[in-house]
């Protein structure tokens, strides 16, 4: 039936719906519903109010997921974001303690993140042959190093005037502000990736950057943009993380980059680039967050939770491969 391109032009509306439900994203929605029902059955405390109250800490990681998904679509990777968050959070605390008004703190924090992102982007722009993994490994160490120097011997800083951060972590009803912001940003990222030339360039570069380059796509510029965007969102994440922790220390943001990558990969976004959908990453992020909250509430050992998440991730990567190989076999039989 399916042609080489995977399109079925003559498909009836029924087939389209079938395809949607059996697409990876469709599966994720089902899984999301299942996880929520599952957690609700396990823990009587798994209520909307409680989940939303526990969520803000995890939501700051979803900020990282959004541009990380773009980076993965490009076929690149950025492992410096955890350190960027650490540095931006440190700057946020120090700026607040230095008496900068809170609007200024917001600006400085996001600017710090953006500058970090630009550093990555600039290196990759000027030296396109360098692997992003190695460049960002370097900046990961550099950014955290700068943060550690700023933090000094104590290794931690806390905000003396928490008023601004308290306001930032406020809620409308049971919904924290950050929840709306994540949804809005998520929607923008989804639309950008599927509706704009920019989005199509992402997939094109991820599939084959050389061909894209010769087709007139400004590969370097887009890469620079996306890495800068990553930094900006790391700054945003740092801001909301600080509003939960009222401080920063040398371990702030540890491992965030891997969490963001895991969410994206679980959402069907291939690390090889050019594949996957933003919306999948977003749903999978909420699946992981809900699962963590639910299992936390039944006091499951957090190490076991990690094992479960790791196993899920491997399954997520394996299933498309297995089904692809099954599909190949079918074709051969035909």
């Amino acid at each position: 039936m399916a042609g080489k391109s995977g399109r079925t032009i003559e498909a009836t509306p029924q087939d389209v719906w079938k395809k949607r439900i059996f697409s990876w994203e469709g599966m994720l929605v089902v899984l999301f519903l299942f996880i929520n029902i599952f957690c609700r059955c396990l823990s009587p405390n798994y209520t909307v109010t409680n989940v939303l109250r526990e969520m803000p800490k995890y939501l700051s990681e979803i900020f990282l997921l959004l541009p990380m998904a773009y980076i993965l679509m490009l076929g690149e990777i950025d492992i410096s974001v955890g350190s960027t968050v650490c540095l931006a959070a440190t700057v946020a605390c120090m700026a607040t303690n230095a008496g900068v008004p809170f609007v200024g703190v917001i600006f400085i924090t996001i600017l710090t993140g953006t500058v970090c992102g630009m550093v990555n982007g600039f290196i990759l722009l000027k030296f396109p042959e360098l692997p992003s993994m190695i460049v960002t490994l370097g900046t990961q160490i550099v950014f955290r190093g700068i943060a550690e120097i700023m933090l000094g011997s104590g290794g931690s800083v806390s905000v003396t005037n928490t008023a601004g951060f308290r306001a930032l972590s406020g809620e409308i009803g049971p919904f924290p502000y950050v929840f709306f912001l994540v949804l809005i940003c998520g929607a923008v990222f989804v639309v950008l990736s599927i509706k704009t030339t920019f989005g199509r360039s992402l997939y094109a570069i991820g599939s084959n950057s050389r061909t894209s380059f010769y087709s007139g796509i400004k590969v370097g510029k887009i890469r620079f943009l996306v890495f800068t965007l990553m930094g900006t969102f790391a700054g945003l994440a740092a801001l909301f993380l600080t509003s939960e922790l009222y401080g920063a220390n040398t371990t702030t943001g540890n491992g965030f980059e891997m969490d963001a990558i895991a969410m994206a990969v679980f959402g069907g976004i291939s690390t090889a680039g050019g594949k996957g959908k933003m919306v999948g990453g977003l749903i999978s992020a909420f699946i992981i967050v809900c699962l963590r909250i639910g299992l936390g509430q039944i006091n499951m050992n957090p190490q076991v939770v990690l094992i479960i998440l790791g196993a899920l991730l491997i399954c997520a990567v394996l299933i498309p491969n297995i089904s692809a190989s099954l599909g190949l076999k079918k074709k051969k039989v035909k």
Partner: protein
Amino acid sequence: MRKKVLSVLLCAAMATGMMAGCGDSSEPASNGGTTDDANANNDASGGSDDADDASGGSDDASGGSDASGGDVSGKKFALVTKSAGNPYNEKEAEGFEDVIKSLGGECIIKHPVAATADAQVSEIQSLISQGVDSICVAANDENALQAALEDAMAAGIKVSCLDSKTNAASRMTFANQAGTTEIGQALMDAVYDIAGGEGEWAILSATSQATNQNAWIEAMKSIMESDSKYANLNLVEVAYGDDEPQKSTDQTQALLSKYPDLKVICAPTTVGIAAAAKVLQDQSSSVKLTGLGLPSEMAAYIGDDDAHSCPYMFLWNPIDVGRLGAYISAALVDGTITGAAGETFTAAGMDNSEYTIVDAGDGGTEVILGAPFKFDPSNIGDWKDVY
């Protein structure tokens, strides 16, 4: 168009999923659900366990509840440790759990996945959702838990710390393992005892700015001056090994060559005492050692005979720290104390059963565990594998 419809659909599905899946929003919020939860959690933890606790705990509890005047059976007590795989913390958790079970309460131990404030915040948030009655935390960061712990207190949960404290705003009180005066007194008595009441002695400390060590040294000096019993002891020098093994070794050797009549070295730092112990034992020196040390590092040097350099030393007993934390939690929950300085409560199962809350000097209050725990040849074997 197709993709647009798809994405709208998925967003809608996600939103409704949040609503539907998360359960009934009309249900009472976190702290309201306590009574329902008790049943659910009993199921989860297994019936036989509960039966054991109830029968085993009844006789202990009778003693405790008489004195404290309240009843904490069926209440939920949580302990958040620094991280999993920390043997010192695990011993604290052991003590905590024992006491809570003996009082008839339900105990939840949370070991965060990493030794970060970040990981502890998740655990605390989760405990608030579960509507526990009390949270006791060994803080990884003094200030970073404030937002989460304030949420907890706002939800009516009694918050205390053990082992290492949070700032004053995020706790009701703190089970302090290391009271400055108690440590000074214990070390001073050890020096007096080992030196035989007279002679020269020296201190090998960490860095010259180390807050804890300086406080303890000051305490020792003031005890020495205040009591004529110590008049024949002569403190010749306070040396600083900067908590580096090599520098501590060098400083020990310098002390030995400078003061041939030296009788005792007191090292109130785990790095210093280990370095000094090795020097003294390797040289079969007649100088003896005491101080604060880790049993695992010091096991080879502790002994009464001349072949060993350290007759005995001190550190805190993590099990007792956990037990005190549990008694504080219980007293906070049953209303015996509110965490204000001057209040007293009873810890029925402990050596020093009457505890008083004192001012901690940081704007908050604390409860001091008591004299540090003595490690000597008779018990070092049991402790060397613990921490």
